[in-house]
C-alpha cells in the first residue's frame, strides 16, 4: 500500500540527500518533485496546492535558521505535513458500552461495504461486543446473501427480513430486534450508490434518520476504495453534505494503489480515517495509524507496527536467542531458519517487508513469492548440523551436490544461498563488534515505550537514509541531534 507514492517521494528525497544543503533553487525543484509525486498518487489537486504552500512556508522558515541538513529538514517537514494531513494521531471508533450503538456503513458501489461489515463485526466481537449485521442493501442482487454468509463466518447475528423493497423499515425494526436478542452493536450495510445519485443519497439519509429517531446515536462510517482517483473529493463531499459521516474506512489497501485518496478525503471532510481494510479474509482489518502511515509513505518504514507484530509473535525465550545470535556474531543457518519460521508466523512477507525502513523501495516491484521461502528452507534442512554452523569451511562440492539433491534444487541454488549467507555473516560480525564497542548494552533497557519509540525513530531515519548500505550503521545512534 502507498508503495508508489513512497517510491516517488523516495527518489525525490534521495536527490535532496545527495545535495546537502538546500538553497532557494533546490527548494523549488524539490517542491516541484513532491507536487508530481503527490499528484501521481491521486492526491487531489487542490489538496496538493495547500500541502505545498504549507510545506514551502515551513521549509523557508527552518532552512534559514535550523542546524539540520537539507534532506533531514525536508523529510521532517514532509513527514509532519503528511501526518497532519492524514489526521495526526489515530482515532479509534469508540462506542459506549452498556447500551445499543449503531454503526452505519455508506459508500459508493463496489467500495467494499458488505465485506467491511463482516470485518467490523469480527473486530467488535474481539472487543467483547455482540454485533448484529443489518441488511439494508436491497439494491444489488444477492447483497443480502453475501452479508448473511459473512455474518455466519464471523459468528455474528444477522437481521435480514427482506431482499428487495424499501430498506428504511428494516433499519427501523432492527433496533427492537437487537434489543430482543441482546446485541449491543448494530452494523447496518447500505446499498452502494453513485456519487451524484440523489435518490440513493436520500435513502441513506432516510435509514440514518429511522435509526436516530429512537434516540440512538448513529455512527456513520464512509467506506472508500483506496484505488479511487481525483473523484474521491467530490464523492466524499457529496456524502458528507447529505448523509454525513463520522469516520472513514479505507478499503482494498492490500492493493498497490498509491492511496492519495486517503489524504484528500481526510483533508476535505475532516473526518478521521479509522480503519484500513486489507484483503479478502475477514480478519484483514486494522486500526489506521496516520503517523505510521506517513513514515511508511516516506519509505522510513513502520517500525512501530513491525515491533508490535514482533512482540505478539516472539516469546521471551525466542527474543533472547535472537539477541544472542546477533550479538555473538555467530549467526548460523539454524538461527536463520528459526528467524524464517518467525517470519512466517508474522504474516505475509510482503507486508513485513513494507514496514522495514529503506527496504520497501528495492522490494516494491518484486513479486515476493512465499514459495521461495520453502525452497530456501528445503536447502537448509538438507544440511547437517555442522554444515549449518560453518558453511564456509565445511561445504565442499560433494556436500553441495548432496544438498541440492536432497532439497530438490540445483547446485547453483545452493551456492547462491551459501554465498549470500556467508556475506551476511561477515557483515553481521562487523556490526556485532561495533555495537559491543559502541556501548549498545550501556543504553539497555529503557523501560518506557516512549523512549523506545524515540530511539527507534532515530534509527528509522538513519536506516532510511542508507537503505541496505546503511545497514551496518544500525547500532544505537550516538549523536542525538
Amino acid at each position, binding site marked *: 500500500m502507498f508503495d508508489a507514492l513512497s517510491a516517488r517521494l523516495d527518489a525525490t528525497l534521495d536527490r535532496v540527500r545527495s545535495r546537502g544543503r538546500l538553497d532557494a533553487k533546490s527548494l523549488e525543484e524539490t517542491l516541484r518533485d513532491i507536487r508530481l509525486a503527490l499528484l*501521481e498518487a*491521486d492526491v487531489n489537486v487542490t489538496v496538493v496546492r495547500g500541502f505545498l504552500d504549507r510545506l514551502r512556508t515551513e521549509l523557508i522558515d527552518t532552512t534559514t535558521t535550523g542546524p539540520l541538513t537539507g534532506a533531514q529538514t525536508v523529510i521532517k517537514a514532509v513527514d509532519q505535513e503528511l501526518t497532519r494531513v492524514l489526521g495526526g494521531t489515530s482515532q479509534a471508533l469508540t462506542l459506549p458500552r452498556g447500551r445499543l450503538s449503531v454503526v452505519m456503513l455508506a459508500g459508493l*458501489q463496489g467500495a467494499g461495504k458488505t465485506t467491511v461489515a463482516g470485518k467490523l463485526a469480527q473486530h467488535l466481537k474481539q472487543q467483547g461486543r455482540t454485533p448484529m449485521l443489518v441488511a439494508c442493501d436491497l*439494491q*444489488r442482487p*444477492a447483497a443480502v*446473501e453475501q452479508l448473511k*454468509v*459473512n455474518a455466519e463466518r464471523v459468528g455474528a447475528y444477522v437481521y435480514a427480513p427482506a431482499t428487495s423493497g424499501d430498506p428504511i423499515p428494516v433499519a427501523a425494526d432492527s433496533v427492537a430486534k437487537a434489543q430482543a436478542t441482546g446485541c449491543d452493536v448494530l452494523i447496518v450495510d447500505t446499498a452502494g450508490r*453513485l*456519487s*451524484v*445519485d440523489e435518490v440513493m443519497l436520500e435513502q441513506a439519509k432516510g435509514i440514518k434518520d429511522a435509526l436516530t429517531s429512537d434516540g440512538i446515536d448513529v455512527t456513520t462510517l464512509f467506506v472508500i*476504495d483506496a*484505488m*479511487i*482517483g*481525483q*473523484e474521491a473529493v467530490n*464523492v466524499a463531499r457529496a456524502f458528507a453534505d447529505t448523509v454525513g459521516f463520522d469516520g472513514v474506512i479505507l478499503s*482494498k489497501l*492490500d*492493493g*498497490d*494503489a*498509491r492511496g492519495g485518496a486517503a489524504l484528500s478525503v481526510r483533508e476535505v471532510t475532516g473526518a478521521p480515517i479509522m480503519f484500513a481494510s486489507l484483503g*479478502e479474509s475477514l480478519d484483514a482489518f486494522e486500526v489506521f495509524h496516520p503517523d505510521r502511515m506517513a513514515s511508511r509513505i516516506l519509505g522510513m518504514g513502520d517500525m512501530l507496527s513491525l*515491533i508490535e507484530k*514482533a*512482540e505478539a509473535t516472539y*516469546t521471551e525465550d525466542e*527474543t*533472547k536467542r*535472537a*539477541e544472542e*545470535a*546477533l*550479538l555473538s556474531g555467530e*549467526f548460523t543457518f539454524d*538461527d*536463520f531458519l528459526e528467524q524464517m519460521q518467525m517470519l512466517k508466523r508474522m504474516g505475509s512477507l510482503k507486508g513485513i*517487508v513494507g514496514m*522495514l525502513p529503506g*527496504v520497501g523501495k528495492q522490494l516494491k516491484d*518484486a*513479486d515476493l513469492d512465499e514459495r521461495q*521461502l520453502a525452497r*530456501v528452507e528445503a536447502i537448509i534442512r538438507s544440511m547437517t548440523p555442522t554444515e549449518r554452523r560453518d558453511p564456509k569451511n565445511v561445504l565442499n562440492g560433494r556436500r553441495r551436490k548432496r544438498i541440492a539433491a536432497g532439497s530438490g534444487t540445483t547446485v547453483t541454488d545452493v551456492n*547462491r*544461498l551459501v554465498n549470500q549467507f556467508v556475506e551476511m555473516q561477515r557483515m*553481521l560480525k562487523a556490526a556485532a563488534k561495533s555495537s559491543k564497542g559502541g556501548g*549498545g548494552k550501556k*543504553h539497555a533497557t*529503557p*523501560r518506557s515505550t516512549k*523512549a523506545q519509540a524515540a530511539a527507534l525513530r532515530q534509527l528509522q531515519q538513519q536506516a532510511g537514509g542508507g537503505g541496505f548500505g546503511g*545497514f551496518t550503521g*544500525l*547500532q*544505537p545512534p550516538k549523536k542525538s541531534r
Partner: protein
Amino acid sequence: MPAELSWIALVAITLVLLVSLVVLWKVYQATVGRRGSTTKDASDSPTSPDVTHPTVTDMPVSVNERLRQKLSATRQTLAGLGDLFHSGIGDAEYERLEELLISVDIGVTASTEIVAQLRSEAIRDNISDPEVLTQRLKRLVREQLVTPEPLTRRDNGPTVWLVAGVNGAGKTTTIGKLAAQLTAEGAKVVLGAADTFRAAATEQLGVWAQRTGAELVTREAGADPGAVAYDTYETATLSNADVAIVDTAGRLQNHRALMDELGKVKRVLEKQAGRLDEVLLVIDATTGQNGIAQARAFTDAVNVTGIVLTKLDGSAKGGIVVAVQKELGIPVKLVGLGEDITDLAVFDPAVFVDGLFAASDV
C-alpha cells in the same frame, strides 16, 4: 507474549529479520533473473476455430445520448477553461490546464504530454483564441482514443468472453447487462459463475441469469474457477448457445497467485475454444492512476482485448482510460452508466471527450 521486550532486543530482532530478508531477497532476485528468460507464455498463439463474423452488439443510439447528458450533468470539473484563457496564455495558464486534465484522472504523464503538445501547436499555428485552443485540446485528447470494434463474435461454436477486474469494479453487473442485451437480440447466452470465492457472488450472477433468461453454470463455493470455466464452455456447446460469458472473482493485480489463477482460467477456456473472442477488463470510472497498473497486470496475465468502463455517472469521468490507452494501447469497448439493464453502451470517444470537457462547452 513477553511483558516488555528490552530495547536492544527489539533492535536485534529487527536486524536479524533484515539480514534474513536481504539474503532471501538476493537469492530470489538471482533466481528470478535466471528463470524469467525461459518462461514464455505460449497461450496467446491463435489456434483453432477462427474468429469470424464480428456482429454488432446493437445498442440503442439513445444510450450514448443519455451518456452525453449524464456526462454534462456536472459542470464543474473543467469550468473556467474559458476564463482561464481570457487573461492571456502563459506558463501559469498552461499549468492550470495541466491540473485540470489531472483532475479528471488523465494522470500526470499523459496530461503533461498533452499540454506540451498543445503548447507547441499553439506557438506553431499562432493560436491565441481561447475557443480555438479549447477545441485543439479536445482534439488532442480525442486523438488518444480509438473508436472500438464491436465485441467479437464467432459463427462456429459458442463465442467466449472472459470478464476480469479488481474487486468491486462491476464485473457481475456488466455481465448481467451484456446478457440482457444479447438475449433481447435473440441470442442464447450461458453465464459461467467462476467467482467461487466471494460470498454470494454466484447468487448475484444467478439473479441476473434469472432476469435475462440466460443459462447459469455454477459449482459449489470454493470450487476451482477453471473447472467452472470448463463446465461453462461444455454447457454452451451442448445447448448450442451463441455466447458464453465467464465471470471471475475480483482480484487486486498485485496478488500474484490470484493473477496466476486467472491465467489458468483463460488457458482452460483456450484449450476448449481456441483463442477467446474477448477478454474484457472492467474498470471503475472513479479509479485513479492505479488503473494503469490494473490494465498492465491484467494484460500480462490474460492479454486483455478491451476495457469496460463502468459507473460513468457524470461526476466520475473516467479519464484514466486516456492514460491507459496512451500507455498500453488497450481500447475501451463499452461504457456502463448506471444500474439499469440498458445502461451499457459501445464506447464513443467523441461523446466521452465531450463529457470530460462538458463544462467548457457552456
